[in-house]
């Protein structure tokens, strides 16, 4: 059992359309994170959540929004997808930062 799953694993969408990515965890972790990974940039934090309905922005939050209505689900929405948002998106869960994060397997998003 992975403990954290992302859906979909792959998606192709058109410029200007809204897109929602889902992250689901079964570990009852308080903290959840959305990162994007691009060549040469490592992982960059988009948004994070520290509890139900408690979210905050990361370093690359423009064009993205998140929602967390239940502990187990953390949704990332691209309000109007652009080609610059073509990336691999990772969700992670964890306690405090020093405990380390557990990552999902990622969603590869292509915006055409």
């Amino acid at each position: 059992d992975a403990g954290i799953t992302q859906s979909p694993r792959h998606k192709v969408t058109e410029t200007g359309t809204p897109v929602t990515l889902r992250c689901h965890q079964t570990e009852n972790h308080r903290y959840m994170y959305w990162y994007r990974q691009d060549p040469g940039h490592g992982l960059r934090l988009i948004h994070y959540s520290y509890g139900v309905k408690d979210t905050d922005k990361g370093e690359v939050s423009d064009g993205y929004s998140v929602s967390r209505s239940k502990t187990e689900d953390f949704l990332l929405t691209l309000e109007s997808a652009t080609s610059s948002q073509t990336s691999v998106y990772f969700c992670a869960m964890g306690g405090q930062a020093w405990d380390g994060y557990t990552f999902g397997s990622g969603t590869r998003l292509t915006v055409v």
Partner: protein
Amino acid sequence: TQLLEQSPQFLSIQEGENLTVYCNSSSVFSSLQWYRQEPGEGPVLLVTVVTGGEVKKLKRLTFQFGDARKDSSLHITAAQPGDTGLYLCAGNGGKLIFGQGTELSVKP
């Protein structure tokens, strides 16, 4: 803004060789982590170092945290093809700040 710089970004070596990957910052971190990522998967935590000067070993991998807690290194002895992957360092600045990664390829 806290930044972590990893070097080298790419490393291609033969099986049996030794290598070192560096992770440097101008900022102090309360702890630093190393992750390994395989294609199509998310990063997996290898180790956390907390104390300045700390050294941890994981089989053929040796991790060191700098005395000033601004830098770290990962040394692999006698690399094997199974070590191939992307290695990421991450500093604890409240949330994890990641370096850009080192892509390691070990050829048989």
